């Protein structure tokens, strides 16, 4: 296959950036999208040019490092597929492919396709946990968790923190990310004591970090590589109202 890649190049956080066109030839449909960038980078390095900087690590779709907007869609054209799991068989010979970093004010560009997502860590550290210091735990079977509850918690806990939801949202909202953690922890019996403080604190941090509000566009859930459902956002709103009514604000 032969492809034309138009990639966002930006030397540093304060520098201007632009789309730069590269041709890649003789690539195989079995290659992953990141392997195409590997091939391009080796060529650039040998030519004495700067390779394209991009985040990646596990290349199995689970660490959440890779983050590219491909042809206008976070993680590209395949549903529930991270950039690293996207393969060239999803494209056609001769395609022109645009590759950009996540675009959202709370995710500033560091270099090329690398952005700073530390705002997500701050949302989690403001309440996305169950207080359970090591050594304090009761016997695992002392609290039963009905299977549907465990499944709901699991479905939301599969979030990989990649940020595609924010990149997809016209408002740059982090509602789906925050909602997934609230749904995971607030649905479990172990999460009940901090149920109200958790949601209030996480939402406050989300707002303080500069993420936009939710207008129920639904782009986030469509872009989510782990299929976190949009209904989690409705749940977040319910949890938030519940906490306000409970007078914990």
């Amino acid at each position, binding site marked *: 296959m032969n492809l034309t890649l138009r990639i966002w190049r930006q030397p540093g956080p304060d520098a201007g950036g632009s789309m730069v066109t590269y041709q890649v030839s003789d*690539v*195989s449909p*079995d*290659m*992953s999208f990141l*392997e195409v960038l*590997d091939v391009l980078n*080796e060529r650039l*390095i*040998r030519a*004495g040019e700067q*390779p394209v900087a991009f*985040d*990646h*690590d*596990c*290349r*199995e779709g*689970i*660490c*959440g*490092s890779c983050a590219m907007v491909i042809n206008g869609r976070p993680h590209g054209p*395949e549903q529930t597929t991270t950039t690293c*799991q996207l393969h060239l068989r999803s494209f056609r010979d001769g395609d022109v492919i645009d590759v950009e970093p996540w675009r959202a004010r709370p995710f500033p560009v*560091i*270099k090329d396709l*690398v952005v*700073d*997502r*530390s705002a*997500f*860590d701050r949302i*989690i*550290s*403001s309440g996305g*946990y*169950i*207080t*359970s*210091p*090591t*050594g*304090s*735990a*009761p016997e*695992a*079977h002392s609290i*039963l*968790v*009905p299977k549907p509850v*465990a499944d709901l*918690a*699991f479905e939301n*806990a*599969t979030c*990989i*923190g990649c940020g595609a939801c924010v990149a997809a949202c016209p408002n740059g909202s982090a509602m789906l990310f925050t909602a997934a953690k609230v749904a995971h922890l607030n649905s*479990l019996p*172990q*999460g009940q004591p901090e149920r109200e403080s958790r949601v209030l604190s996480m939402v406050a941090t989300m707002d303080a970090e500069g993420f936009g509000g939710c207008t129920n566009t639904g782009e986030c859930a469509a872009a989510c590589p782990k299929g976190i459902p949009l209904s989690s956002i409705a749940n977040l709103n319910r949890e938030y109202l519940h906490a306000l009514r409970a007078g914990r604000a």
Partner: protein
Amino acid sequence: MIDYTVGEDIVDRAAPDGPIEARWDTRRFTAKLVNPSNRRKHRIIVVGTGLAGGSAGATLAEQGYQVVQFCFQDSPRRAHSVAAQGGINAAKDYRNDGDSIHRLFYDTVKGGDFRSRESNVYRLAQVSVEIIDQCVAQGVPFAREYGGLLDNRSFGGVQVSRTFYARGQTGQQLLIGAYQALSRQIAAGNIEMHPRTEMLDLIVIDGRARGIVARDLITGEVRTYLADAVVLATGGYGNIFYLSTNAKGSNATAIWRAHRRGAYLANPCYTQIHPTCIPRSGEHQSKLTLMSESLRNDGRIWVPKRKGDTRAPNEIPEDERDYYLERIYPSFGNLVPRDIASRAAKNQCDEGRGVGPGGLGVYLDFADAIARLGRDAVEARYGNLFDMYQRITGENPYEVPMRIYPAIHYAMGGLWVDYDLQSNLAGLFVIGEANFSDHGANRLGASALMQGLADGYFVLPATINDYLARGGLDPVGPEDPAVRQVQSEALDRLQRLLSVRGERTVDSFHRELGALLWDKCGMARSDESLRDALERIPKLREQFWQSVTVPGTGAELNQELEKANRVADFLEFAELLALDALVRTESCGGHFRVESQTPDGEARRDDENFSHVAAWEFGGDGRGPVLHKEPLQFDYVHPTQRSYA
């Protein structure tokens, strides 16, 4: 470089005597404590935020220590523990199937081919039950049954169901539990977290580990960090083979640099080759993806009986298939340990019965499971793995059998530690995959998560107190000449990497090293192949320093510089790995020497000469290393020829 010298034997002085059941209690009682109000006066550096590092950082901070923690990823949540799929073992005996702490201990010592320490493994089995309690309390959504109880499944090398799991994402869920505990401590101001910061060297003063040199990967700034103790939780060195199931960034720099500063490196030749990975599809391959061992609960492994059979799998009738694991190992069948399953697959392919491109693959077939349980049940158990397989290969495993082939997965070897998880270098603690201690020559499935969390939540926090309470640490400042020295050496090295400006990329060297190691020191190793590797590695290293090219500068985000620094260390590490494999002329676990096998091709141990840990001391650049042996003693499990037939 085949010259090495044999030094004095090394002994684990931290392990107490007495009945094995009481040793951990004894050690916890004899370990000195640090008064809660004094703990905040101690700084502890933790490098790495995977299951071991994340759980250790959180627990030490909960206890009141000042923790300074590092990871090279942009967030602690991305450490490669996140990719572990199958599950975590614990001797809960919830299935009432005859499990016990003693049986988990026995299975692990036997699975490790009698090359691990009894005391350590027994403690691991004891602590395993507390780990599940801890994780459930944190909200880890383990799989449950309809009655609300935790579900279990079975893994290779055992005959009980003791593996707890969260679909095929157990590592992710456990890691997020540890990450959330860590996040809570970061917000509380008890942990100073440095993401995107990579350790370059260890600072040793007066024989004690006192800090690290680390590079901020965004700004390129190389800084020193000082503390009372240093904990390395930096994972394994499987990426030395280039193609492995490790993350692209996983590297051996921290443990190799610590080794160069005096820490012994134990059993580097014990590398685990996982039997069920997706075969490579071409030259461009950048990494390999594991398919969880749990698939062997329901999938059946087979190859065509006829050599070079190119028919599609569905066209090969039942009586022309060889379910070779079920045939050779009837009592464990498809659930034999990893080393045995890997070698059996290699043997089938070597004999010409492999399937797929290049004949490097065997089938893992779910047709029987789907017929027996229905597609929905199979999907509920393994859905995400099937999806991943389909995304990578373009084939639907519900309809055609998966093709799998062994790949490098885990490093049993690592820095030598005593029962307290302390290296021979005082004040240096090593936990998780980075140490060598619990898995012997072969790790059983679902034991890595158990060990990482055992070390981080329960073992290290109890033993590090003892070191800190003994005191005797002189204050050290950043201007101390010894500190400045290490920092300037690290900077010089980066400058050297940047100034070669040759014509070959870092990846080209890494690929060449990986291919060489896989070929000469992979699934089968011989005297000849290892001597050849030992000839070629130093030449490749020399070439690297003459002709590598690293663009850009050190004062910016420079991913090629990061890689170059890691590959430079792999090129040194590889030599010790091959040397250790050469010196150990027996076969054991994942280390298979072709000269040492039984008539039916199984690994043959040589207990008389090799029932020891090989702990290597760095001899200096251009000088051979020194081998220290730690004799292994078996009082509770009698070493036998492993049999899974």
